[in-house]
């Protein structure tokens, strides 16, 4: 009897471990395949059959993407919007979150409700577009930054964290005559690094991955193009043959390598920074997501 149970357990464990292995493979294979193709000679790739190892190793594809002015520029804009957007967003959300975490703040209730509503109702694409047009944000770098500075969801996540800090820490500082700003900078911010790291990751990933705002507002301006948008243009033109293909400067310039290889190399360039960052912040964002969901 006892023997049988152990066997059933072992079967269960093996089977379960196998399912997890399949999850691992299904998740990782596409990335490894993209990496292999991006490191394989373009003309050799066309023959097919590349799995997770390059057959004829080369770094040519990467050299090529970094020689095209458009792509270099797009890379620069992507980095710039990520840095500026993250810094601005982090400053804004932490400041607003702090004021909302203070139970004695007069406008706390009003501002909270004001922010909550934005989570449920949005004006939609067209009024948004016309607003950007009226504000002269079309064909401008700032359209990437300004509308995204305040995000109610992030503010509430930070607020929940700050509310969990013992208030006595602030109280003694106030008695010593510290101002709200001093307390915020000297006491609250240093204690909130875990949640700030999480939010920084979320904002940065959002900015880095964003392509639709480029498409909608700056689609005709090569100087403000982003890496994701360039990738999207190549994807659309090679796969679906849509209108995009007709005015795709990057593809027209390319003769030595195929669009497919370029696509893979750009994909790796966009994915690698993320892979290098998120595992280190894992314990923070797992905690943050759990708290946020429980509270809301």
């Amino acid at each position, binding site marked *: 009897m006892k023997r049988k149970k152990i066997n059933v357990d072992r079967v*269960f*464990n093996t089977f379960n471990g196998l399912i*997890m292995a399949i*999850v*691992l493979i*299904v*998740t990782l294979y*596409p*990335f490894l395949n*993209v990496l292999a193709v991006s490191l394989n000679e373009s003309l050799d790739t066309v023959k*097919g*059959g590349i799995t997770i190892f390059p057959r004829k190793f080369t770094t040519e594809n990467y050299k090529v993407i970094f020689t095209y002015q458009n792509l270099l520029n797009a890379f620069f804009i992507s980095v710039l919007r990520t840095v500026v957007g993250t810094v601005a967003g982090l400053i*804004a959300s932490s*400041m*607003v979150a702090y*004021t*909302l975490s203070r139970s004695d703040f007069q*406008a706390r209730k009003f*501002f909270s409700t*004001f*922010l909550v509503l*934005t989570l449920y*109702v*949005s*004006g*939609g*694409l*067209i*009024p*948004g*577009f*016309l*607003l950007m047009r009226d*504000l002269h944000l079309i064909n401008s770098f700032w359209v990437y930054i*300004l509308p995204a*500075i*305040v995000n109610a969801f992030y503010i509430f996540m930070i607020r929940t964290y700050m509310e969990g800090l013992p208030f006595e820490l602030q109280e003694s500082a106030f008695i010593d005559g510290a*101002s*709200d*700003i001093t307390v915020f900078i000297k006491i609250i911010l240093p204690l909130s690094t875990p949640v700030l790291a999480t939010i920084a990751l979320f904002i940065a990933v959002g900015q880095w*991955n964003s*392509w*639709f705002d480029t498409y909608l507002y700056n689609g005709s301006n090569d100087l403000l193009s982003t890496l*994701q948008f360039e*990738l999207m243009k190549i*994807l*659309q033109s090679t796969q*679906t043959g*849509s209108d995009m293909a007709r005015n795709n400067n990057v593809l027209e310039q390319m003769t030595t390598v195929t669009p497919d290889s370029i696509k893979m190399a750009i*994909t790796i360039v*966009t*994915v690698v920074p*993320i*892979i290098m960052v*998120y*595992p280190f912040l*894992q314990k923070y964002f*797992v905690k943050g*997501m*759990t708290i946020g969901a429980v509270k809301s």
Partner: protein
Amino acid sequence: MANVEASKVDLFVKKMYQQRYLYLMSVPFIILVLIFNYIPIWGWIMSFQNFKLGRTFFEQEWVGLANFIQILSDKQFYLVLRNTLAMSVMGLIAGFTIPIIFAVSLNEVSHTGYKKIVQTISYLPHFVSWVVVAGIFYKLLSTDGGVVNDILMKLGFIGEPIQFMAKGKLFWWIVTLADIWKEMGWNSIIFISAITAIDPQLYDAAKVDGCGRFRQIWHITLPGIRSVVIVLLILSIGNLVRIGFEKQMLLSNPLVFDYSEVLDLYALKYGLGLNRFSFGTAIGMFSSLVSVCLLFTANGLFKHYSKESVM
């Protein structure tokens, strides 16, 4: 009386002055929210006009509900609504069951290192953009050396490659699958932490009673996360119509438009593309209003449920 009023105002102003730094820290950003989140809602007024660029607000022509009537009499609209609802319901069902199964299954892995690796890797696709995911799916499903076709052919299920991306009927499934591939790990975070919160003594007691692994899962793990599941389910009903359009836009092509077009894309195409701003706004307003209605319904259900659970 007047004195009391005056002193109340005085007190308020005094406190406001005391909290001037708090106002300084929040008001500039509240103004940004007013501009970027609230002014577009004021833009809904356009849906009752025949909005033309270059006219002032007072010069616009008022048309009443004409735009809404036009939407409701457009055959394309019903097709788009069907696609939106179909993909959101499929996404909702798959987006709950699969992460739960994954969380339960991961919890049963006894090797801590293996568990950690699987968990970390499972978050990866969440952080990758839809552009990249669409590219990956095109490649996986391609007829020209795509892995899926290769495997199916080697196993003898099909004689020649299937053109997955050209089949309208498959589009909903592809979008749902892509969504699962991207978000399964991420969406399981909350279930995993709910499972960790279950009292381990329950499992010990079950083992003593002779419960096998499946019965432990069925009688302890699943009931243990039941309340979390219900809360999340109800909250996501409010977002049924707002499924976004990124994945549909990136994964679709002209061959499958009848199945891929969703409300936002419809608004984008007919609103911005053809300069029919009022028409497009009306569509956006429609989907926002439906969301709010669904949210209230879901909230009512939630209240009903929580009342019951208290009793």
